[in-house]
């Protein structure tokens, strides 16, 4: 089955924290105030952060596994 995971374009991320607020799994953190980091173990690929991101720099990556 295809698995989906959110990926942040760290270069473009503005570290606003919208994704962090909306993540139902608490999988997102912005530890250094520079960009958001997604815990791939926790991420279920729901895509809420993708919709929320005001800079639209998060995408869902689909991988077969």
């Amino acid at each position, binding site marked *: 089955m295809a698995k989906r995971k959110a990926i942040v374009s760290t270069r*473009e991320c*503005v*570290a*606003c*924290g*919208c994704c*962090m*607020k*909306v993540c*139902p799994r*608490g999988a997102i953190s*912005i*530890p*250094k*105030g*520079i960009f958001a980091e997604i815990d791939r173990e926790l991420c279920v690929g729901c895509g*809420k952060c993708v*919709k*929320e*991101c*005001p*800079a*639209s*720099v998060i995408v869902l990556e689909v991988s077969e596994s």
Partner: protein
Amino acid sequence: MNRKKNWYDYLWIVSLTYLVLGFFNILFAWLGLLCFFIPLIISITKGNKAYCNRYCGRGQLFALAGGRFGLSRKKDIPGWMKSGWFRYGFLIFFFIMFFLMLWNTWLVFAGTKNLRTAVTLLWTFKVPWHWAYHGAFFSDGVAQFAFGFYSIMLTSTVLGFVTMLLFKPRSWCVYCPMGTMTQLICKAKHVTWSQK
């Protein structure tokens, strides 16, 4: 989404109150300095953007207006608006306008210029605002700064509101000068920390 609400999730009320108070007494505009110093202090001491991430009432206000009230088109922000040159350019422009405002305040303090009881929207339009002025404490400069600072706060709210309508609710966060500046501070801090 079912996350328990924290006290800081209600800071949008503070931001809204701030904007409303400016219509009654311009001197309340001084309180806006908190939105200036708190993010800076957090980023300098803690090296993170906890202010943007948690406490920014303005961001929450846009999130509410665009999200719950459905005012936002929720379209992607144009590429140039999230590009580095625009974000840093806007930060520099904002800074220049800020220092011009400080200069004008100084001129009023020094008595070279008379107090102007107007709010300047989008750095261009002078909106009469005399009804919110009931005399300053000791110098007209105190009031001039309040008018100037409130102009900045109202201008950024107007800009943020327009981009909230057009793009994602919190699209202001993408080019917010405070956000860009605190991110820069964090970058600088973590570079120097990693060299230690």
